[in-house]
Structure formats: structure tokens, C-alpha cells
């Protein structure tokens, strides 16, 4: 097997430089690459384009990189939880491209699956369709949307092995597997890194071929956005 293990976040992101395009996994604050984000903030790399379903909250997730003004452009589907984001957007400091969530996911998958473009009905007849090719199949209109072209994908998994294989836990899976497939260089941080051979080949969500670097993350905060509970009756 090919060994993908690196020492940690700093080594993993060593060649992420100003102006690069990054995909970041996660939905809300669930399943985000916390260690990579912290390392990017520490490194101070700038003018990034970030493809991520959400933009974090004011003081966590991608929000940390917005605060330090490291992000030039966000490509997201929903950014409703971040006041600093909204401020930068309304002031024109931040470019934002909002696209449907399924389109976001499928454009990642298209990159990982070597499909240059896909068709989706999402956004037909709306401002999302402006400037895009529309095509009718079987009486229904679809937009043609292009595969993403990202320099790096930063994903977070539950378990991984030195061969780069990843297993996700619960709904922290979300965008992580499709982004892992889509990066030119994919960096995976995991809660538990094991030796090749310790994961069941049938249960691997992302095969190691898609992962270029893997490291065991630390100090995971795994913040909860909406702590909803029910009383014990």
C-alpha cells in the first residue's frame, strides 16, 4: 500500500498558497476540517476561493478565516448563520456565489467521477440559471452545470488508515466524500488514524486513491449549532 500519512495539519497544508481554490467538507459545523482551518488561519494564506456548503459561524469554522479576511470568494448554498459574512458581503469585501445545495454536491461528484458537466433541474427559471445553458430532456428543463476545479479538498473523517481510506460517522459524512473525490490534492484529517488493514474494505466510504495526505487531528471541538433536546419523560 502507498503511505499517505503526514505529521499534522501544518505539513498537510504546506503548499496551500495565496489565491488557491479550496473545497471544505462539512454541513454547518458538522464534519468540518477543524485542524486544517486552524492551520490556514495560523499560516495567514490569503485571497482564497472557498467552496463549502456553509460559511461557518462568526467565531468557528470558515468564519475564522472570514474574520481574518483570508477569503476572497465563497461558493456556498447557505450562509445564514454568520453575521460577519453578511457584513463583508453587503459591503462588497467578499465575493459570493450562492448555488443550490444539490448542484454544489453534484458538481463535486462530477469532478471526482471525471464528468465535465452534469444536468440538474435545480434553479431553472431563477437567477441561478442566468448565463447557463438550458436543455430539455423528456419535456423537462435542466441546467448544465460544470464540474468544480479545486486545487485542494480539505475533509474531515472519523477514521482513516495510512493508505488514505476514510470512514465517516453519522451525518458528519455530508459533503466530505464527494469533496474528497474532487480535489486535485485531497487532505484528510481524521479523529483516529489506524494502520492499513485495520478497516474493513467493505465499509470504506472514500477509497485511499482519492486521498493524498492524511493525519490524525487533535483537540476536536465539534461544536453544536442548534442543541435541541427532548425531556426525559
Amino acid at each position, binding site marked *: 500500500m502507498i503511505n499517505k500519512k503526514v505529521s499534522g495539519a501544518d505539513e498537510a497544508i504546506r503548499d496551500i498558497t495565496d489565491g488557491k481554490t479550496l473545497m471544505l467538507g462539512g454541513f454547518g459545523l458538522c464534519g468540518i476540517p477543524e485542524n486544517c482551518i486552524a492551520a490556514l488561519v495560523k499560516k495567514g494564506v490569503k485571497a482564497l476561493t472557498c467552496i463549502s456548503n456553509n460559511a461557518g459561524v462568526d467565531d468557528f469554522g470558515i468564519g475564522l478565516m472570514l474574520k481574518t479576511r483570508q477569503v476572497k470568494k465563497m461558493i456556498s448554498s447557505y450562509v445564514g448563520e454568520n453575521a460577519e459574512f453578511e457584513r463583508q458581503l453587503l459591503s462588497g469585501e467578499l465575493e459570493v456565489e450562492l448555488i443550490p445545495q444539490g448542484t454544489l454536491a453534484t458538481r463535486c461528484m462530477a469532478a471526482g467521477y471525471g464528468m465535465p458537466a452534469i444536468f440538474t433541474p435545480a434553479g431553472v427559471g431563477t437567477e441561478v440559471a442566468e448565463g447557463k445553458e438550458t436543455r430539455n430532456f423528456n419535456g423537462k428543463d435542466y441546467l448544465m452545470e460544470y464540474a468544480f476545479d479545486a486545487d485542494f479538498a480539505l475533509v474531515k473523517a472519523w477514521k482513516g488508515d495510512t493508505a488514505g481510506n476514510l470512514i465517516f460517522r453519522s451525518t458528519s459524512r*455530508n459533503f466530505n466524500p464527494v469533496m474528497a473525490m474532487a480535489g486535485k490534492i485531497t487532505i484528510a484529517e481524521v479523529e483516529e488514524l489506524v494502520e492499513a488493514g485495520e478497516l474493513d474494505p467493505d465499509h470504506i466510504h472514500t477509497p485511499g486513491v482519492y486521498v493524498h495526505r492524511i493525519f490524525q487531528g487533535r483537540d476536536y471541538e465539534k461544536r*453544536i449549532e442548534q442543541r435541541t433536546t427532548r425531556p426525559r419523560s
Partner: protein
Amino acid sequence: MLDKNGIAKRIAKEIKDGYYVNLGIGIPTLVANYIPEGINVVLQSENGLLGMGPFPFQGEEDADMINAGKQTITTLPGSSIFDSAMSFGMIRSQKIDLTILGAMEVSENGDIANWKIPGKMVKGMGGAMDLVASAKNIIVAMQHINKAGESKLLPACTLPLTGVNCIRKVVTELAVLDILPEGGFRLIERAPGVSVDFIRQSTAGKLFADADVKEMELN
């Protein structure tokens, strides 16, 4: 006139045994509380879960287990987890029988606007555009009139659209209305104590209403 729970309760009656259902954020989420006993329904959450269960007990919240509203939730026996591409794959291929979502405006030809107020609000569309473009059966849960008393059921939407010609049923605090294929709202039921005249006054889009339209039954 219905409160939010009343709207949710009325919508719950539209859910049939064996349905896979996607519930949007807000009032639609409340619908889960009113699904009748004996009806087997599987709730899909578009962040990647089939078989959404109730909120966890206090102390059992799991940061890795949330729904599309970012709320901590639980699974049920028979649940499955999948990635975002598969989640929207099953939405596009119409494996979800019913989608319930909120709206800021709906037009008489079935257009919907619910994601953006230019210059004021830019939260993003999330999965709503995918859902409305794909679902075969969509119910909108919304307020019939805004705080200024203006109708949100319009001849044409004024806000940026989420989808065109896709909504077939609307449930508001005042009424249940179908949107006719040829255009126009058809009043199906009145909320308790609400008159047809008041509904007519509150609907800016074309309204078709019989004088004797029945009152909702909520139990």
C-alpha cells in the same frame, strides 16, 4: 385562524402511509409532531439521513448527528446515512414522495420565492431549489398575509424565485388552497372561524372559491 402548530397539524393530514417525506426548516419541521399513529413515514433530511428520529434526550446530543436545520436529532431502527450527492440524487430521481417547505411568496401559477430579499437578506437557497425543481408533490407552509396585512399569495412573485410552476398546494393560517394547472388558487378549506370573504380579501392572486367551502377538521 391557525397558529404555526395548527398549520403543521393540518399538513400532517396530507401524509400517507408509506411516504418518504422531506421537511424544510420552520413550520414544516413541526409537522413531524402531528403524524398520525399507525402511519409509517420515513423522514429524509437532505444533509444525508433517511429515518430521522426525535430530538435526543438531554445529555445525549451528538455533534455528528444533525438534521438539515443543524438541530441535534436521533436515528430510528432502519435509518441510513449517505453523502450529499446521493441525498440530492434521491431527491432529483423523485424517490421522496412529499416535500413540505416554507415560502415568503407563492404565485398563482405555482412559482415560489423563499431564499433572498435583495439588499436585505442573503441566506442562500440551501436545498430548496433542488427540492422544488425535483419533487413531484410539494406542500408549502406559509403565512397568508404579512404583518402589514399584505397578501403573500400573489399574481406573480416580486422576490427572486426559488422555482417556477412547481407548487400545487399551500397551507396558511387562513386556508388550504390548491394551485390549478391553468393558474389560480382554488380554495379547498377555510381555517376555523375564517370567512371566505376574508380569504378572498387576503389573496392578491386569482382566487376560485365556492361560497360553501368547508372548514378544516384538525382532529
